[in-house]
């Protein structure tokens, strides 16, 4: 029996939420709680300290289960507050006001899990599949030695998941069912079961580890089956009658007497063509020739699969073992050989042949379906709308994707906010037909020595960039109010814009801050914002 100090030290080393209530520490003077009551949540003050150390508020995901909103998942901090999955959302909110509630996104979770499965197929084992909602199956048969043995692999897998931001538990067993159970219910984070030891490893786990239906679980509880070990000695017939046939199948699957094949996540192979050269090459012309051959091959592959390439990657293997990689992207799926070739040729200068390149691979990492499209009613006289995607690709290949754009309207009265850069391929809408200059200054420039009648006459004269302009005609004002929902400073701000023409015929867009009546709309200073033709 450990001494009292030892027990106290052990208790102190436990995390706050796992420490037993005070009553169990032996203070009999306090009122004892009901023995079947859920352990009381830790005091909020203590959790407050924990929030600071972890850097985020306790988080719980809320989703709809049946017809009620309930907590679907809770983080460790939230669990320490007494929030657990299956609790009504309102109950959880009442328990902890500082809880960070977010809606659960099962589709996004499933998508992420699918991506993980794909990664597993590419990286660890050709047979891998996702087990919704939260698991992965990998068939390690014949693969474990590639990753340094099962134990090493399990540790690497866990380290990978931690880097990727997941908390992972790994179990390796003879059957997928046993691994599924052990990964979720075994005491350790990493469980390795030696071949043939499955039944012993499983016997200590609760019945729920067998992926049973809710009714079978209820029945198992009623008949006193707590662990899987309780099920093993029972005769099959009576067990099937009590728990249902599905439960028996699950048990057999876990023990290996019923096969449960893993349906692997299919990895659609990337279109890839390759050319090996008799002699290493180094000149631009030779590389261009290889590019032409490779693009021809790849276009055939794409044609056969009905795909169009959105990106291409050309990998050249150098004699000294180095790799030269160039990549291109297109704005629409295409398999037009001449176009792809021209884009690739723009990148030739980025290839460093070194002592020579002896092997080339051309892959299309990103493809999209490309089928015949309707030609429209050309015969009836409708004009063809030319697709600018090819032009966009060519220019983007030369100066970068961000440097090619369309300018699209933004619903805003403020001139400098009415435009934004947009996707160059899609045709944007149009602006309202208010008179606007063709050149707009990034920042309005101040005007000096302005003579204008208040409140709403255009200036008679002004000086700008050291030159005096005498105004002969003016239109305005066009009053533009600040957007109060953006900044506090714009709540009352007003600009009165005028279009003025000077003696030489120069037409300018000038504005006055303030409406000339109220002090808080602006300071009545004059600015020039743009130039008309």
């Amino acid at each position, binding site marked *: 029996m450990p001494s009292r100090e030892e027990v106290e030290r052990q208790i102190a080393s436990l995390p706050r939420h796992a420490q037993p209530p005070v009553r169990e520490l032996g203070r009999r003077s306090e009122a004892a709680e009901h023995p079947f009551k859920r352990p009381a949540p830790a005091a909020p003050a203590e959790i407050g300290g924990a929030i600071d150390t972890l850097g985020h508020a306790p988080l719980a995901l809320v989703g709809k289960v049946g017809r009620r909103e309930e907590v679907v998942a809770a983080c460790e901090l939230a669990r320490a507050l007494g929030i657990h999955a299956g609790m009504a959302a309102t109950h959880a909110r009442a328990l902890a006001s500082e809880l960070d509630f977010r809606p659960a996104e099962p589709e996004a979770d499933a998508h992420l899990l699918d991506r993980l499965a794909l990664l597993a197929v590419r990286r660890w084992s050709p047979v891998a599949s996702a087990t919704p909602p939260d698991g992965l199956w990998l068939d390690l048969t014949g693969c474990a030695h590639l990753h340094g043995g099962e134990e090493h692999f399990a540790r690497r897998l866990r380290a990978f998941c931690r880097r990727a931001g997941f908390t992972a538990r790994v179990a390796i067993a003879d059957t997928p069912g046993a691994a599924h159970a052990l990964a979720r219910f075994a005491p350790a984070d990493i469980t390795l079961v030696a071949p043939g030891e499955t039944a012993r490893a499983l016997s200590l786990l609760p019945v729920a580890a067998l992926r049973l239906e809710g009714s079978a679980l209820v029945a198992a509880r009623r008949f006193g089956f707590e662990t899987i070990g309780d099920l093993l000695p029972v005769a099959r017939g009576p067990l099937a009658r009590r728990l249902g046939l599905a439960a028996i199948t699950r048990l057999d699957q876990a023990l290996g007497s019923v096969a449960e094949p893993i349906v692997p996540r299919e990895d659609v192979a990337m279109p890839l063509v390759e050319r090996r050269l008799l002699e290493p090459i180094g000149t631009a012309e030779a590389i261009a020739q290889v590019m032409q051959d490779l693009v021809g091959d790849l276009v055939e592959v794409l044609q056969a699969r009905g795909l169009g390439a959105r990106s291409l990657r050309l990998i050249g293997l150098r004699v000294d073992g180095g790799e030269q990689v160039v990549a291109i992207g297109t704005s629409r799926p295409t398999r037009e050989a001449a176009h792809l070739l021209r884009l690739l040729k723009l990148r030739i200068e980025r290839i460093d042949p070194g002592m020579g390149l002896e092997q080339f691979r051309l892959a299309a990492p990103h493809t999209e379906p490309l089928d015949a499209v309707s030609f429209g009613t050309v015969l009836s006289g409708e004009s063809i709308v030319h697709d600018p995607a090819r032009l966009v690709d060519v220019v983007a290949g030369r100066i970068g994707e961000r440097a090619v754009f369309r*300018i699209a309207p933004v619903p805003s009265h403020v001139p400098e906010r009415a435009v934004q850069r947009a996707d160059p391929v899609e045709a944007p809408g149009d602006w309202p037909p208010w008179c606007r200059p063709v050149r707009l200054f990034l920042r309005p420039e101040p005007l000096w020595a302005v003579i204008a009648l208040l409140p709403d006459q255009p200036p008679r004269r002004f000086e700008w960039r050291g030159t005096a302009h005498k105004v002969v005609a003016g239109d305005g004002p066009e009053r533009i109010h600040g957007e109060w929902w953006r900044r506090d400073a714009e709540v009352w701000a007003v600009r009165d814009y005028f279009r003025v023409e000077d003696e030489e015929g120069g037409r300018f867009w000038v504005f006055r801050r303030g409406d000339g009546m109220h002090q808080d709309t602006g300071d009545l200073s004059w600015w020039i914002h743009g130039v008309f033709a």
Partner: protein
Amino acid sequence: MPAAPDPLPDSIARLKAMASAAVDCRMLPFGIPALDGRLAGGGLRAGALHEVAGRSCSLSDDAAATLFLAGIAAREAQGSGRPALWVSSRVDLYAPGLAQAGLSAARVIHAQPRDDHALLAVVEDALRDGTPSAVVAEAGKVSMVATRRLQLAAAEADIPVLLLRRRRARDRDPFAEPSAAWTRWWIATAPSERLDVAGVGRPRWSVELARQRGGEPFSLIVEGCDETGRLAVPAAPRRRAAEAAGTARSAAA
């Protein structure tokens, strides 16, 4: 054994056709007899390089030159249904203003290269691609070799290249160095007609053709682009008859 046909005469004929003011190539008329009548071939040649600069270094003249080009590009984009490409390293172009000259957001794609070198490469790439209906480029320094390349590429693609020559210094003539451009234009703002009511009338530009192949230089006052990019001749000049009548400037070439 019959001798292989000599390819030389063919290519010489092609080069001659490319370099001469041939009448059978496509033309872009302005739709103004006063302007088209004085241009060789009855309009701007479609597959050619045209250079435009502001008459003075003022921003108004620069804006007028910009809109002059925008109007040409807009009419071409409207006719062909293909977008125009606007290549510029500057950031002060205001798209709603362009849209009011007929070059709406759906008809123009912008490209913003870092420098003039990349700009010329982009223009040439776009010409070789053949998709744009017109290419407008704003460039400062363009060498004779570069203009010749652009002119040849434009002739091959049959796409107009409209080069807005920016001034690199306050009193430096952008047309001082020679160029292979088909036409060179000076554009300046002119006082608009005074209306009977308060307000600014339709803008007027003084358009001066400094040089054209196969034709004489001239100058003219026109009214600025409307919303379809069309110019107009001032109607019935009452007060400024002298300005509307063209005076040739033989010194500029």
